[in-house]
């Protein structure tokens, strides 16, 4: 189901104040948590995910970890309804009622694209916000909305830069700005670590952390930066086809299965 039809760009509420730290429930939906029940994915006879049970709560950052090929990307694609799965993914609001649809913002892993492409950050974000083809230019109103989106990720200064000329961290901020517009209920960050220096990374996660508090968003972070996970995650899930261990980061770091999967990380934690 194309999300654009359900949530037209006009639905974005520009009155949201992003620096508002006071706790408030987002008005447009009221997602409380996402429950994955018995979720399995198979592809060509291979089992990619088997009987996954997990919860993702709003107002919390859930770190998803697991070895290569554990099915993390598959899980994300299932959450985005991009692949068929068996089992159920329930979206539940704060009165324990099921929600039919939630908005998901997705910050993908960085893929290579043509760096010489004459496309500015404004072009790129405007293309996701309006129907007007950006080769005819970007209107004043759209330009303002792009600025507003960029300010959510503290990337206002990047508006007129060319996409291919951004550093890894800058590109990640632009992608975050896009994922946050219109405001999502669930934000998925797929290994934002790659291509960012340590400073940029913490700056990025600080921004995400603020958003978690101010917007009460559910955040799913795929990362293998253990110090980062320790510092920012409220919940942690170890995945390898199915959930091996879940709970607070302390719980998972202490898990036997975690220490088997990542012996070096477990030693470092002690």
């Amino acid at each position: 189901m194309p999300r654009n039809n359900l949530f037209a760009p006009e639905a974005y509420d520009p009155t949201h104040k992003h620096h508002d730290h006071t706790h408030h429930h987002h008005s447009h939906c009221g997602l409380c948590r996402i429950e994955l029940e018995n979720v399995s994915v198979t592809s060509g006879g291979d089992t990619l995910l088997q009987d996954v049970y997990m919860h993702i709560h709003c107002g919390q950052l859930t770190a998803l970890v697991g070895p290569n090929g554990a099915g993390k990307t598959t899980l994300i694609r299932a959450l985005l309804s991009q692949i068929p799965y068996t089992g159920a993914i329930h979206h539940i609001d704060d009165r324990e009622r099921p929600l039919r649809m939630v908005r998901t913002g997705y910050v993908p892993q960085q893929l290579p694209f043509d760096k010489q492409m004459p496309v500015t950050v404004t072009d790129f974000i405007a293309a996701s916000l309006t129907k007007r083809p950006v080769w005819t230019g970007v209107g004043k109103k759209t330009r303002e909305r792009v600025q507003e989106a960029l300010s959510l990720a503290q990337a206002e200064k990047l508006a007129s830069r060319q996409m291919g000329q951004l550093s890894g961290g800058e590109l990640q901020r632009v992608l975050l700005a896009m994922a946050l517009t219109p405001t999502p209920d669930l934000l998925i960050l797929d290994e934002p670590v790659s291509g960012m220096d340590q400073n940029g990374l913490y700056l990025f996660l600080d921004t995400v952390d603020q958003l978690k508090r101010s917007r009460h968003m559910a955040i799913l972070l795929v990362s293998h930066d253990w110090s980062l996970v320790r510092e920012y995650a409220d919940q942690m899930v170890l995945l390898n086809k199915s959930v091996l261990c879940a709970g607070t980061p302390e719980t998972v770091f202490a898990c036997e299965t975690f220490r088997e999967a990542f012996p070096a990380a477990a030693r470092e934690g002690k």
Partner: protein
Amino acid sequence: MNTIYAIMDVLLPFEIFQFTFMKNALLAMLLLTPLLALLGTMAVNKRMAFFSDALGHSALFGLGIGVLLGMSNVTVILVCFGILWAMLITRINRTGGASADTTISVFSSTGIALGLLILSGNGRFSKYSSILVGDVLAVTQMDILWLFIALVAGVALWAMMYNHLLLTAVNPQLAQSRGIRTNLVEYAFVILVAVAVMLAIRWVGVLLINALLILPAAAARNISRSARQHAFFSVLFSLFSGVCGLIISVPLNSSVGAAVVLCAASIYALTLLLSQILRIRLQA
């Protein structure tokens, strides 16, 4: 039509444009170059120059099929064939196997070979050789009307798909997460390119059609930073090359298509030089 001719008489006080066939040729150029230039911007960004080249060459096969079927309307068969061929190449590229350039090369040479085999039957290839170089001076008023309709429809479709295509070109997973049907958008694009190429091929020719798609966009890219600049300069360069090529070639009595492409190639060289100078200036 007469009104348009009258306006042209005022605007273009050149001797060569006294003739109606020259006026028609000029109008045809002004109608067929902008759509190719716009589509070219994305073809260049998505590194599809080789793909469109193969598509253009395979028009020989399309023409061959038309001849075998005894069809009189060449354009219809070329367009239908172009769409199928473009979808086939895209489909096979997606299933993987060989790398894209290998697959495309196989398609290109197969298309040419099949076309030549059919068209050169009984040693009569000379009858069809005009498809190789095109003949824009043979454009009729009816053709111009069709080119006009194609331009309007093509630009409208292009405007509809562009934003989605742009997001898909940068990051397909991201585009999908925003509800964009990336497969649909990509097929729509190759089909539109196929139609535009096949409509223009009678006038520009198999050998040079790809240059008209790629060169203006490639030249524009050298000096553009935004999508708008890219589209603007690409259209500007292609219109300029089209008109210049026409004016240069007629007194020389040589191929219009060749002159147009050489104009576009000169612009490419100039913009490349300009971008290099600018880069050196910036570094200094």
